[in-house]
């Protein structure tokens, strides 16, 4: 019964969305306040019914209701409860339901919290948001109903991929989706602004918190996914330039550009069409991500089951939403009046460079991801694959200049800046960065020039960010109490920027250390075998069989010594899940700030293979890898700080008045 209630609730939500996609839009055109305000109730109704549908599916998973096809395919009665719950969004249909749930939550949030947004803009935005909902509700109801029943019901489920039984991964899709879908609101705002034909500083300010919220969720989602790959896959890497990773990375890159260009629109009333375009494209790339993972267009390690009919439906959806909004852009954008002018050396110009580089980087990733498809189409079926060598060679060299500019940008003033003066102030930072890099070279020796160059740039960014903060609070230039007062009064958005910029520098240390100075050993394991890696002496003590809730595992014991001193023991496992008939590796990791010692055991595919079925042991030392996670946390915290800035909460911006937000210290703030 409950699944049918869920199905019915979905249909009702679609009805709500249909009303909301028309009525408020018409109301805005005719100036009918009642019609415009109906958006609030239909948005809340959509959330209500979608939540009922989601809870119905959740209930089916929690109680292991094997009359529901989706539960049969993605759950098992022996699975731990946490992963039964996570199974709700583990499948194509379930994840789609989560997707629309988040979509409707965002719509309702705008209708409830967006009290300072003018009625017309709000009504149009919510209507556009409802168009997206309609697309996804019909997609689910027509091609991917999560509540399909099976008869006769099987005795037990077919399990979720055991690889995916991981807490990090259970949380990964929800966060990623909050990011993807969060950009839908920005998209709706952009389309509404195009329909309205006006974009101004106030518009940019209303959009900003939504962009920030989406961006920080996406950051957390990507970081979690990468963390999962690192801990779970047992390959000892955190980024593989896999299509599925790339499609989540592209909205992030472009969303980062949007975050910065929206600042210019907010403060200086410039970059208007560009900000609108970025808003459209960022969400388009999110949709593309959803599409590519489900359509079988590209090969990937972690794609959903493929169905051409679904692919066609999503392509149609994409054509309408992306094609439609870009056509609208082509039609309306030229009529938008240009805003504030600025000199080639100014904060605007700095942010322009940021935007150009980020957009180019997005283009590179997009091109590399889709090139196999283009190539196959143009050559009539010949295949190739684009891998890390391309991305490393194309992506890294253009990102390094961005990081250099990131160090300088925050020092520049709006409209016209004094670059020599800024460089003068940064000369100690530059000297410090060079000295620190030389020190690293002296200690480490060896390694490619690009590695040292990257370190130089990362140290530069970190130091320049600190220096910028110190300048703002006049550290050492004013009495300490004065600095403390200034530090307390700085807007939170400023702290957000400093944290996020420093976070990127910190994450860079991790990227560089763990990719350039990684060491790796692969051996057949025999008890008593010893190897040396990165100064550690590792001894393989032996193997034992252990039993888990729904798997059996071979667990190895490794003793790690350094200079004759006992450091730790590691227990990597190779698990076998009988129900799913598949293996996973559970790597054992000794984590320190200096680096991770990482061990994983792999079993050759058959017992007859290898020397008597010997296991292979893979030991890696990944220097500084934890800085990636620390840096990611700093990026997310930076976003949270910025989001909690009071100018986004109070000081309700209104059109027509000059933008002077509440808050002291009106230094350029973001």
């Amino acid at each position, binding site marked *: 019964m409950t699944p049918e209630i869920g199905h019915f609730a979905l249909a009702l939500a679609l009805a709500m969305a249909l009303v909301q996609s028309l009525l408020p839009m018409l109301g805005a055109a005719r100036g009918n306040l009642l019609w415009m305000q109906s958006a609030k109730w239909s948005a809340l109704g959509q959330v209500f019914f979608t939540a009922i549908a989601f809870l119905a599916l959740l209930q089916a998973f929690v109680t292991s209701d094997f009359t529901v096809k989706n539960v049969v395919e993605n759950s098992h009665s022996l699975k731990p409860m946490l992963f039964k719950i996570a199974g709700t969004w583990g499948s194509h249909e379930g994840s789609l339901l989560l997707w629309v749930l988040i979509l409707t939550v965002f719509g309702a949030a705008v209708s409830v919290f967006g009290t300072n947004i003018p009625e017309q803009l709000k009504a149009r935005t919510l209507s556009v948001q409802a168009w997206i909902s309609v697309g996804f509700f019909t997609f689910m109801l027509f091609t991917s109903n999560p509540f399909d029943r099976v008869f006769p019901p099987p005795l037990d489920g077919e399990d979720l991929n055991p690889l995916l039984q991981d807490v990090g991964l259970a949380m990964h899709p929800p966060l990623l989706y909050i990011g993807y879908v969060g950009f839908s609101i920005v998209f709706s705002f952009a389309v509404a602004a195009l329909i309205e034909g006006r974009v101004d500083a106030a518009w940019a300010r209303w959009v900003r918190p939504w962009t920030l919220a989406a961006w920080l969720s996406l950051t957390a989602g990507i970081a979690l996914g990468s963390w999962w790959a690192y801990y779970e896959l047992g390959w000892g890497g955190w980024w593989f330039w896999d299509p599925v990773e790339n499609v989540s990375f592209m909205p992030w890159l472009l969303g980062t550009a949007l975050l910065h260009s929206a600042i210019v629109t907010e403060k200086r009333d410039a970059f208007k069409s560009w900000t609108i375009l970025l808003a459209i494209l960022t969400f388009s790339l999110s949709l593309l991500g959803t599409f590519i993972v489900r359509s079988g267009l590209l090969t990937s390690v972690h794609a959903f089951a493929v169905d*051409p009919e679904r692919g066609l439906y999503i392509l149609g959806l994409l054509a309408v939403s*992306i094609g439609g909004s870009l056509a609208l852009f*082509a039609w309306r*954008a030229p009529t938008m009046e240009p805003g504030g002018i600025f000199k080639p050396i100014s904060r605007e110009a700095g942010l322009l460079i940021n935007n150009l580089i980020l957009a180019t980087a997005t283009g590179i990733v997009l091109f590399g991801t889709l090139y196999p498809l283009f190539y196959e189409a143009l050559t009539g079926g010949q295949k190739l694959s684009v891998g890390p060598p391309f991305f490393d060679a194309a992506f890294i060299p253009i990102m390094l200049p961005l990081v250099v500019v990131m160090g300088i940008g925050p020092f520049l003033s709006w409209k016209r800046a004094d670059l020599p003066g800024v460089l003068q102030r940064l000369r100690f930072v530059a000297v410090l960065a060079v000295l620190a890099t030389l020190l690293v070279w002296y200690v480490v020796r060896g390694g490619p020039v690009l590695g040292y160059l990257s370190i130089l740039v990362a140290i530069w960014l970190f130091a320049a960010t600190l220096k910028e903060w110190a300048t703002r609070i006049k550290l050492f230039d004013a009495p300490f109490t004065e600095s403390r007062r200034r530090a307390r009064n700085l807007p939170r958005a400023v702290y957000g920027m400093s944290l996020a910029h420093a976070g990127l520098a910190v994450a860079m240390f991790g990227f560089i250390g763990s990719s350039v100075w990684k060491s790796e050993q692969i051996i057949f394991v025999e008890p008593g075998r010893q190897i040396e890696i990165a100064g550690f002496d590792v001894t393989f003590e032996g193997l034992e069989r252990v039993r888990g809730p729904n798997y059996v595992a071979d667990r190895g014991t490794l003793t790690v010594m350094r200079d004759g001193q006992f450091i730790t023991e590691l227990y990597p496992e190779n698990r076998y899940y009988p129900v799913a008939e598949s293996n996973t590796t559970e790597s054992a990791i000794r984590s320190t700030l200096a680096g991770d010692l990482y061990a994983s055991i792999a079993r050759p*595919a058959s017992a007859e293979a*290898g020397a008597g079925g010997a296991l292979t042991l893979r030991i890696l030392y990944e220097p500084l890898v934890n800085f990636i996670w620390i840096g990611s946390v700093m990026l997310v915290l930076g976003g949270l700080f910025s989001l909690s800035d009071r100018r986004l909460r109070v000081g309700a911006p209104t059109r027509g008045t000059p933008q002077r937000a509440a808050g002291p210290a009106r230094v350029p703030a973001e």
Partner: protein
Amino acid sequence: MVRALAAIPFLIAVIFGGFFLWGLDPDRDPNDIPSVLISQAVPYFALAQVEGLQTASFGRDDLMGNPSPVIVNVFASWCVPCRAEHAVLTDLVESDGQRLFGINYKDKPEDATRWLAELGNPYERIGADSTGRAGIEWGISGVPETFIVGPDGTVLYRFVGPVVGNDAVADFRQALVQAGALENEAGG
């Protein structure tokens, strides 16, 4: 001018859409790797000996005029699945009397020598493809890959990935039977 500029994103999106529509053809399998070399002559390559190894060098000439089909295996000491596959190949040579040639792909001679010393050397000839040039000629997509080459130097079969596990080994043996390098084992 501005108008044309504003239309560019739309045009790009339309082009992308065309490609996606093409890509959704249900007959298209993105996981399928076409074997362009099948029933074609072996590409030209001539590889030097692996330094420090007694095994003779390997080139296209060694694949011409053999009395029966032979196996060509692309391997590397840095390739983990190759280790597992090594035992299967050794077994084919020692128990079934197959002739095995090796292309040592993008490897360091000292690593390859140590690897073969540790696991044994079932290869009749090994060519050192330190630059990966021969690998490109053969069109390999990764390591290991294994080919069956007929007496006239025609590529008869290609196996992508390690020949490891019951199914894979059965497939490969079946291909050897079809090529005429192995007696049909269905009876015995």
